[in-house]
């Protein structure tokens, strides 16, 4: 349903358990084993980081707001849970997902505008024929079963910022953590409100320094034992300012009385923290080269 996440196609058809998602991906790779072996690719999160960068750049060039960029990212992730990436031209998929997302998020861009932007961003991979992108749109919509309405965590964040008396800084940090989660599989694994709460939790605990990170880890540990954090847990808030500590307490007691799946929040937090670890190893050039190899060798850019 459009406004009701619980009845939405997102929840009914596009939310998997980790096991199911792994099986789906395994099957895709098994079906194309030779291709997969011939063209190794980096960690999915690194690829996603590249996609994220490219789409954000695309969005900036056309002054498109973040939500449409986020929708495009979810489209790309859904699509690649159905289709082996090495059978596609990822740049064409990115441009098409962006084109479609703009229409669905009510900021439509002309197909020519999209194609010419895409061409100037990726001249080696996009030809000027708009019908290529139009055809790819059919492919994308078909693989997604026309289920194009995406529920994002941003809305929950906006709803909660007052409830949890978050400062502007906290909110914008949580906002950028939400932006980052599109580089992980979390959008296919958890409901948007869980992601939003995770982002808030991380924003309040990660801030402002490395000390916050440890705080996050130990708060996560406290949360996972499903009891509200003891008020004076020794050392846990080391280096975190007092007001911040209060906000975290606020959040924890709010979580304790709410119906949010705390275990899920903990899992999401860990996923995001490890994302930041993985991204340390991101080398733009390697990703691009590995994509270029199969696209060029297989003539997918024609």
């Amino acid at each position, binding site marked *: 349903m459009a406004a009701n996440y619980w009845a939405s196609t997102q929840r009914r058809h596009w939310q998997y358990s980790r096991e199911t998602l792994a099986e789906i991906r395994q099957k895709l790779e098994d079906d194309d084993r030779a*291709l997969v072996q011939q063209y190794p690719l980096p960690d999915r999160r690194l690829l996603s980081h590249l996609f994220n960068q490219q789409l954000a750049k695309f969005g900036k060039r056309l002054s498109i707001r973040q939500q449409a960029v986020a929708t495009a990212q979810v489209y790309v992730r859904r699509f690649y849970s159905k289709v082996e990436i090495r059978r596609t031209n990822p740049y064409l998929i990115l441009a098409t997902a962006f084109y479609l997302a703009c229409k669905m998020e*009510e900021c439509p861009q002309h197909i020519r505008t999209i194609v010419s932007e895409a061409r100037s961003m990726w001249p080696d991979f996009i030809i000027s024929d708009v019908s290529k992108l139009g055809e790819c749109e*059919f492919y994308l919509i078909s693989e997604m079963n026309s289920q194009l309405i995406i529920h994002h965590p941003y809305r929950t964040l906006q709803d909660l910022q007052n409830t949890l008396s978050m400062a502007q800084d906290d909110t914008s940090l949580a906002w950028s953590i939400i932006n980052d989660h599109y580089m992980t599989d979390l959008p296919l694994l958890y409901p948007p409100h869980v992601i939003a709460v995770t982002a808030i939790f991380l924003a309040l605990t990660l801030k402002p320094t490395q000390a916050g990170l440890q705080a996050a880890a130990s708060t996560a540990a406290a949360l996972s034992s499903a009891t509200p954090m003891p008020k004076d847990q020794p050392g846990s808030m080391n280096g975190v300012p007092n007001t911040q500590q209060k906000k975290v307490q606020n959040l924890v007691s709010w979580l304790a009385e709410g119906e949010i799946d705390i275990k899920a929040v903990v899992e999401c937090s860990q996923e995001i923290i490890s994302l930041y670890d993985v991204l340390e190893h991101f080398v733009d050039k390697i990703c691009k080269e590995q994509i270029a190899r199969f696209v060029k*060798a297989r003539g*997918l850019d024609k």
Partner: protein
Amino acid sequence: MSPCSNNPSIPPTFLRNHFDNGITPNHDDPISNSPEPDTPESDTTQPAYLDPYYLEPYSHNFVLPTESSEARKMPPTNGYTSKVRVLDRYKVVGFISSGTYGRVYKAVGHNGMAGEFAIKKFKPDKEGEMIQYTGISQSACREMALCSELSHPNMIHLVEIILEDKCIFMVFEYAEHDLLQIIQHHSQPTRHPIPASAVRSILFQLLNGLLYLHSNWVLHRDLKPANIMVTSKGEVRIGDLGLARLFYKPLHSLFSGDKVVVTIWYRAPELLLGSKHYTPAVDLWAVGCIFAELLSLRPIFKGEEAKMDSKKTVPFQKNQMQKIVEILGMPTKDKWPGLIHQGEHSQLQTLSSYVREGNNGKSGLESWYWNTLRSTGYQDSPPSVTPGQQGLDLLSKLLEYDPMKRLSAEQALQHPYFTANGEKVSANCFEGMSTQYPSRRVSQDDNDIRTSSLPGTKRNGFPDDSLAGRPTKRMKD
């Protein structure tokens, strides 16, 4: 060369990509919100799937040759072919209607799939011999996405969507009737009223579907009799979500997207006066107009649409506004405090403040209402045979100038019109009726479909929204 002509069996014409524009002779596609259709590229490479080396890129049945040779021989694999073919699944039995969006066909299922279907084929943006993919119109995207998401007994049910041969086919449950057809049936050969109980049931189901839409943050924006289907079991189904959209915190103001929405006779005063912030209340105004039309069998505000000028500025719909003022009187800022904030409220001065003469000092709408009941032939009693005083009260609260005061779908459903007299509103609007409505007209003639699909050929006898003189759809900027 048509992409289809390579196939050994020639597909029926309805799979080809010609559209008869007889109904809307101007070539501008008023439905497409995207800018002008693209002109085809000079380079017309044939579609990938006509390539003899073409391999379906995502077929799981496909067995790969050894990888080394595969990598060398593999042709471009971005080509799209549908996994499902419309004609494998459905047998088209006739043509129902066409409009700016494309055409609608009646079909039955193949292979024992029970039931009847209405298949809406979207017109590709580009017409001509060689169809190119030019991007799907935003309106089609919305309709596909919303219909996939929504499900309610008073919404038309989507069976599936098939994207094939550069066309979009939306397969819906088949509904035998629609409100326009029912209204027409009661207008001919002589006017005889739609039973009061049926009107009540229709209105209740319509509001119930609308409540569902609005509580899901969807504005329909094009409610009118032709878009409201009725099944043979008397169930009302809201159809045509081509203009519908979400209104929860849109990225842009609703106004900026589609400057003009809702077929003119059903267009709310705030839209006519150029409001920048409109709300679900626009749909409730349309419900009021439909209610009035069910009672009088004629559109209540039958204005003439002022066309957009060459600069594509949206004109003030003076004639339409005049029709409203004739019955409801001039809106005032006492009754509608937001009136002065409407972009075009100064235009009201250009209108005549003439209000159609009310009998015995009654207000315009009240006088219209009782005259209408009398002339359509409603009896005054018992309460079950007349829409009565409660009907008037509900109607006046739907046709309320101030969108802030206009009833919401939820409030309207609780109106005494539905609850008074202790009668239950039936979920079958035909309950207890002896009238048999004629089945939807379906052209059985294959040849007719074929020839009529040639550009510029007029179809015989199946006008877009039936009644000649009905405004042709909505306009958009």
